[in-house]
Every structure is written in structure tokens, then in C-alpha cells.
């Protein structure tokens, strides 16, 4: 909520536009209530609206720890420029209850605006540098609905307020509301509109003292796609050609499997809910063996259960995409918090020398693209491919341009062509090509796919030379893929005081931190690794241009002071400049934390 590109600038609306209206480039709006109040719904609508107004958007929500619900927030960061984080602080706070007010007033930035429900909030801290605007949200909504006692509709009342305050396009908002509630019975939509209109008409102007207008985005006029990371992942898998998969539910992975279960039949495929994770990965490997690129996934604990079968996937060289929506660990840990502590397990979790590809998406759009890539790699290299996403990406909503589907979508075809004399599933001089069952073997000899060490034909062999050669073969194909990766692109300064290295969902905050650091006169750049195993070659050349290489991760610094990616980079590059910026509080990085910790690291 400021004319500058960052939402962290010290003052609110410093430069009213000539019209007397304050033009906002960005606004961070936090709705704080209970999970039952439907604040996710209006947050989602605002995000969708942003996508339709060539604005950028990023959302952030918390999930109550009890099933019965409880305090919950939904934060929307809207911007006409690039939006890279959900916002460290909010510009506007909507507090529905006293507990919402008490817990979240601290997140309002100095000079921010707090709108609270006078029906539920008794006490506000009037000595704060904030504009408090009391509105009887509950009673006004009940009144508008003609006396509904169930307190439904407060969310739409609030949406009406927001539409009014930020001069959003009312027609577009109403269109979205109709789309959302239109499917249900008529009363629902009518009540929703009544509440919305009441909020839109509520005389808030005087209370605010200033008028705001959120700038239109600068981007293309094309409507953007607005969705969350788990949904984008599902769509990427479908585009990548996955038609079969199996899994077991666990938070926050479940919404991927639930969607795949619904979507796959449309494509003629099938997703199976298995009795546990062991069965799930085995079924998925059965699908893979049958000639399909298949998918399984889970979160933390469920991944640990899959480690034995994934070792088989490497040995037998079967194409399997494995998704881990990371959450706080170890054990059941913090099931609804974000963490990046499963990287080492993705690379090293199975027994034996088990090389496998590990990827991580950087934002919601990338969940789509990386899923497509994972499918391609599994197919091409006939091996398991891990995708490490996380709790933050899973539920975060962003707007992005629709991918070029015609170019990206892969329609899988089952290859049951006859194989001749020369057929070798594991050639020493080439990539694995299985003959799926159903393929006639014209020389009369059929293959067995095994987890025992085997020769080029797949026959088990305890011959020392063969084990050595096959171990090399499984490693070299992954290395060969690594050699195809471009050197990571640098964002920011190409040399200087510090290079920040990140992976996964921290992409946005890191980029925003680079911008702020540079704005503050620092010479810093960043690279973001989407390929964690193998990593791209040539990074030592990049590192050479900076005084510090700082790896920002959401995991623990370990026994020797380094986070997981930092450990990998140091082992590979043996460069003591590589140091860690770690944390394990289960929260997303705030931009200002990265900034201050990079400053501190540069200082010494």
C-alpha cells in the first residue's frame, strides 16, 4: 500500500494523486476472523479479481490447528507491479473479533488502517500509529439479510467494503460472486448479494479521511489464471501426461490426490486411494511398469514410508513422479506449517546408492511447469523424479499467465510394439527402455524387472564387475541430465557483496529482498535453484564473483552450521564462502528478515 514497489515503505500513502485520491500500487489486506467465517472465500475472490485486472497477487492463510475450526487469517497482497511475497506486514487489517484484533494488530504497519467489527471488538489500542475504523459489521450484515441469526454473510459485507474502499471494478466483483454462489440455491446468491451491497453502500468514506484507488496493472490485458500451488501441480501433472497414480491422504498433500482422483477419469485415467503409503507407491510403480508415467505423493511422514520402494524404482529404473508437499518435521511435527527440511531425504533417504532427480518449484505458476518437466524427465530417463513443494505453495494463491497448453501438453501413448533379438532394457551404452507387458518379444525371451542387481538384459547377477558398471550407469544418466541444465540466471547484480541462493517457495521473498538491498545501496544478486539433484554445472563461476554466498533456507543449520542446500553446495564446491541463513519457526520468510540477515552476514 504505497506508491513504491515494496509494501514495506515507512509511511502510508505519502503522495495523494492530483485528483485527491491516493493511488496505491500495492496493498496488503489481512482478514482476521474464524475459519468458519468464509474469509478464505472472499480472499480467493479478491485474488481472482486481481488476475482479471492484470494485477499481481499473492495470498497467505493459516489453518486452525483443530478440526472444529478456530482463529484463522487470510491475507491478500494485491499489486499493479510484481508481487513477490504475501507481505511482511499488512496495510489494512479487518478484525472480526477481539481475539482477531489482539493477535493481529501487531502485523499492521505504522500508519496502517484497521477496520474492526464494533459488535465483537470491545477494546482497541488507541495509542497506536494506526487509523482505527469501527464498523458494526455483524449487525449491519444481519440487518441487510433481514435478521438472519446465523451470522453468515459478514465476509461478503467485508468484500463490499473493500470494493468500495479501493474503487475496485464493481461489475467484475459481482460477476465473480455470482460465479461462486450461482450454482447453489437461489437464496444463497441473493443473500450474498444483499450482504455485499450493504458493505459496498456503507458510508465509510468519512471515516477513512482519504480516498484510495488501486492502480490497474501494467501487464497484458489478458486475464490471468488465479489458483493455488497444489491445483497448479495437478494441472501440470495432467499436462505432463500422467494418467495413473496412487496415494494415501495426508495434510497438505491431500488436495492434490483429491483433485487427481476427480480429474483423471476425464482423461481416461485413474487415481487410486491406497490402504497406506507403502501400497500407494507400490501401485504407482505397478502403473509405471505397465507403461505409464505415474505419480505418487505425500507429505513428510508418508515419504519416509516410501523410501524402500523408491529404492526399487531407482534399481528397476521405472518412471515415477513423487511429490512431497513439505511441512514442519520431524515426525508429525507441525502438520500445517511450512518447512524445507526434506531435501536431504529426497536425495539420500533410501538405502544404497540411489541417484534420483529432485526438483522444486519456485512459485505457484512454477508448480505447473515443474510438474510438466518432472513427467518429461521421468519418461526420458526412466527413473523416479522428486518434486519438493511445500505447505506455503500448497495453499497460496497467485495470478499468472495461462501456459501455452498446445506446446506443453503431452498425450501419452502406450507402446506395446514387438521387441526383437537385440532388445536390452538396461543397455550399458544407452538409456533404459522397458518393454511394457503386452509387448511381444519376437525372439521368444521375456524380461523380468527386478530389484536385485542385474545385467543389461535384467538378469540378476552378483558379478562384481556388473554391480560396479550398473551403479555407474544409474549415476551417469542423472549426471548426463545435469549437463543439460543451463547455468542459473542471476537476478540483481552479477557480482558484488553477496549472492543469495535459494530454492523452493522462498523465491519471491528473496527477490524482493534483493530489490530492497540494492535499493539500499548493496551490491547483491540471487540465483534460485529449481534443480536440486543434479544441480546445474558451472555455479562455481557465479560464486567467484561475490564476496559471500548465502543460502537462504527454511530448515535447521545442522550439526556444522549449514542448512541442507548449503551442505550440498559446500560438499560439491568446497567453497567456504558458502554460508547459511536458516530458520525453523514454521513461518514464511519475511522480506525484512532476509534483508537484515544478509546485511549481518555481509558485515561479518
Amino acid at each position, binding site marked *: 500500500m504505497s506508491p513504491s514497489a515494496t509494501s514495506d515503505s515507512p509511511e502510508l500513502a505519502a503522495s495523494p494523486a492530483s485528483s485527491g485520491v491516493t493511488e496505491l500500487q500495492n496493498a496488503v489486506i489481512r482478514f482476521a476472523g474464524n475459519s468458519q467465517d468464509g474469509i478464505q472465500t472472499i480472499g480467493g475472490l479478491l485474488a481472482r479479481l486481481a488476475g482479471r485486472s492484470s494485477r499481481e497477487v499473492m495470498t497467505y492463510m493459516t489453518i486452525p490447528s483443530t478440526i472444529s475450526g478456530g482463529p484463522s487469517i487470510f491475507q491478500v497482497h494485491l499489486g499493479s507491479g510484481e508481487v513477490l511475497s504475501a507481505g511482511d506486514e499488512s496495510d489494512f487489517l479487518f478484525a472480526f473479533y477481539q481475539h482477531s484484533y489482539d493477535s493481529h494488530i501487531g502485523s499492521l504497519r505504522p500508519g496502517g488502517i484497521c477496520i474492526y467489527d464494533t459488535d465483537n471488538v470491545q477494546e482497541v489500542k488507541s495509542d497506536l500509529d494506526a487509523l482505527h475504523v469501527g464498523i458494526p459489521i455483524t449487525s449491519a450484515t444481519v440487518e441487510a439479510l433481514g435478521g438472519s441469526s446465523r451470522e453468515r454473510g459478514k465476509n461478503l459485507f467485508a468484500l463490499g467494503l473493500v470494493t468500495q474502499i479501493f474503487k475496485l471494478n464493481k461489475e467484475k466483483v459481482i460477476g465473480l460472486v455470482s460465479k461462486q454462489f450461482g450454482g447453489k440455491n437461489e437464496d444463497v446468491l441473493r443473500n450474498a448479494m444483499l450482504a455485499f451491497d450493504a458493505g459496498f453502500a456503507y458510508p465509510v468514506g468519512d471515516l477513512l479521511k482519504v480516498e484510495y484507488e488501486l492502480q490497474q496493472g501494467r501487464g497484458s490485458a489478458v486475464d490471468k489464471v488465479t489458483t493455488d500451488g497444489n491445483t497448479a501441480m495437478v494441472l501440470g501433472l495432467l499436462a505432463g501426461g500422467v494418467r495413473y497414480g496412487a496415494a494415501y491422504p495426508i495434510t497438505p498433500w491431500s488436495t492434490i490426490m483429491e483433485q487427481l482422483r476427480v480429474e483423471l477419469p476425464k482423461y481416461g485415467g485413474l487415481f487410486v486411494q491406497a490402504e497406506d503409503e507403502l*501400497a500407494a507407491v507400490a501401485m504407482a510403480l505397478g502403473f509405471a511398469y505397465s507403461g505409464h508415467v505415474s505419480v505418487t505423493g505425500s507429505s513428510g511422514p508418508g515419504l519416509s514410508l516410501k523410501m524402500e520402494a523408491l529404492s526399487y524404482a531407482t534399481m528397476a529404473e521405472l518412471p515415477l513422479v513423487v511429490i512431497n508437499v513439505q511441512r514442519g518435521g520431524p515426525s508429525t511435527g507441525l502438520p500445517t506449517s511450512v518447512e524445507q527440511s526434506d531435501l536431504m531425504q529426497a536425495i539420500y533417504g533410501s538405502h544404497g546408492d540411489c541417484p534420483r532427480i529432485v526438483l522444486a518449484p519456485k512459485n505457484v505458476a512454477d508448480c505447473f511447469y515443474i510438474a510438466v518437466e518432472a513427467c518429461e524427465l521421468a519418461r526420458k530417463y526412466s527413473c523416479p523424479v522428486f518434486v519438493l513443494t511445500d505447505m506455503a505453495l500448497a495453499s497460496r494463491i497467485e495470478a499468472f499467465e495461462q501456459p501455452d497448453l498446445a506446446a506443453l501438453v503431452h498425450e501419452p501413448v502406450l507402446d506395446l510394439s514387438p521387441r526383437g533379438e537385440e532388445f536390452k532394457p538396461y543397455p550399458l551404452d544407452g538409456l533404459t527402455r522397458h518393454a511394457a*507387458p503386452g509387448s511381444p518379444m519376437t525372439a521368444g525371451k521375456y524380461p*523380468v524387472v527386478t530389484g536385485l542387481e542385474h545385467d543389461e538384459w535384467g538378469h540378476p547377477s552378483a558379478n562384481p564387475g556388473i554391480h560396479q558398471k550398473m551403479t555407474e550407469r544409474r549415476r551417469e544418466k542423472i549426471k548426463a541430465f545435469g549437463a543439460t541444465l543451463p547455468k542459473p540466471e542471476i537476478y540483481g547484480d552479477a557480482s558484488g557483496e553477496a549472492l543469495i541462493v535459494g530454492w523452493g517457495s522462498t523465491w519471491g521473498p528473496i527477490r524482493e529482498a534483493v530489490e530492497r538491498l540494492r535499493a539500499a545501496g548493496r551490491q547483491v544478486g540471487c540465483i534460485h535453484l529449481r534443480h536440486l539433484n543434479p544441480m546445474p554445472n558451472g555455479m562455481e563461476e557465479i560464486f567467484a564473483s561475490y564476496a559471500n554466498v548465502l543460502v537462504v533456507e527454511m530448515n535447521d543449520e545442522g550439526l556444522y552450521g549449514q542448512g541442507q542446500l548449503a551442505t550440498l553446495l559446500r560438499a560439491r564446491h568446497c567453497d567456504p564462502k558458502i554460508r547459511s541463513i536458516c530458520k525453523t519457526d514454521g513461518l514464511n520468510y519475511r522480506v525484512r528478515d532476509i534483508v537484515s540477515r544478509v546485511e549481518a552476514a555481509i558485515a561479518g
Partner: protein
Amino acid sequence: MSTTTESPKPLTKKDLTADHPTWCPGCGDFAVLATFFKVLEKLQIPHEKICTIAGIGCSSRFPYFVNGHGVHFIHGRALPFATGVSLSRPDLHVFAFGGDGDGYSIGGNHLDHAARKNVNLTYIVMDNFVYGLTKKQTSPTSPKGFKSKTDPTGAIDQPINPMKKLVYGGASFVARTHATQVKHMMEVFERAILHPGFSVVEVLSECVIFYPGAFDDGNPRKGGTFDLIEEKKWDNSPEDAERHDVSDENEAYRLASLQYPGKFGVFYETDRPTKNQLEQVWIDSTREKVGDASAVDLLSSRFASMK
């Protein structure tokens, strides 16, 4: 599973024979393999459509000895793997093989769930009442008192009753036979393979090294009795009243309670929809609903809805 007979030249035992089995001379599993070959010869399933899948154990080396598409998977998980194959490849004939440890110990849960879901495949368990491959530990079917390396003074846990497990679990074809009774084995294998749905045959198959003589009680040649289940012929005769109605689950359970060596033959058989069929109905109706749209079309309209 239904058979097809469209293969051009007949499939012979020779075509089906792969490596010479690494089993110990005298191991009961040889007879199971030979019988399997005979039944395949009779049924003439197209060669490339035969798919055998196993976990780990002596018995689980089966796929190496059958010249057909084969999988030697990990311990205890043959059935979920085979489920993946069966559900996505209706054209194949899927066979799972394994031992008592693989199937009833580490793999016991998968068996129950594959059974209740009635996945279309045939599962043959070579039960030798012992862990063979790992050299004589107590298995879940080892009788009380059996002296193994993990029960040197004799097994103390009540063993699992495989027939009860299969009947309770919901397998739609459940039979029991003995590796020395080749003719009976053949009959039962054939019926299991022809049965549409999850069919299981428990074969008592002697481990001559670690549990010799375990099944002599069921082997007439060694002085035992091979007592067959007489199935109802539905001929209204008075004798028929005494015979076993294979569709009666409670009766099947009662039969399973008989003391060792008990009865052999088909305990239970029923015709209920397979998971394969039920999922296919859903897939087909969904495809119809979307007008058999291409992936690009489906995704395009999905993306459009998110704008």
C-alpha cells in the same frame, strides 16, 4: 480372468520355461511351477499377455522361472504392485506369487485390501510354514511348537489361518491345495484363473530344507489324507444337502476352522463386481460427460474457469 485363444501358434511348456529354478532339489515349489505351465498350456493365454509378479522369498523367485513378462518386486508388496498393473492394463493376465511370510506377515494388510476391492488377478501362495530364503525363522503359519532359529524352544504364537483370512477379507475365489497333488492343483489353478476377480490359491508346498515333512499329513503317499471338499451339485439329491455350497461365506469360514490338515478344494467362490469394472464404469461415464475431449481441450477449459 477370461482366456483368449487368438494366439497364432500354440504356446508350449517349452516357450514358457525360462531359467532353471534355483530352488533346492525336492522343494515343493517345482511342482507348483510345472502345474502353472500345464494350465497356461491348456488355457493358451497369448504369450505377451502373461505377467507374473512376486515379492521376496524362495517362492517369490517364481517370475524368473516363467518366460513371460515378470516382476521381482520388494518383500510383501507384490499385491499392490499387481493391482497397479491390473487396474491400468485390462488386456493382461496378472498373476501374483509368494510365500507365507511375504503374503501373510509383511504383506498381510495388502492382501486384505486387494481382496475386499476384488482386484482382478490370481494370487498363488506357496505356504511352507517357514521363512525359507532367510533360513528358518518362524513364519505366521508356523504351527505352535515348531523349532526355528527365532523360536529355538518352539513357536509360541498362534499361527494365522490363511483360509479364514481370505474368506473374511472378501477374496471372491478361495481355494487350497497341496503341491504333491498335481491333478488337484491343476483343477484349482484353472478355476482360479478363469474366475473373474480376486482369486487366491493357497498351496501347501514343502520346504525340504527347513521344514521337511510339514505336509505329510496331507499327503496320502506319506500316510496322510488328502481330504477333498465336496461341492454342491444342486441336483436336489439327499447327498447334496451335505455338500458344500461354495457361495456360503459362513460355511466357508467353518470349513477353514477344521483341524490340520483340514480340507482341500474350493472354499468360497462368488461373483461380485471387480474394482476394475467399477472404476471403468466411472471412467467411461466421465469420458462421456466430457465428450471424449482431448487433454488440451480439457485443460484449456479448466484454465479458462480459473480466470
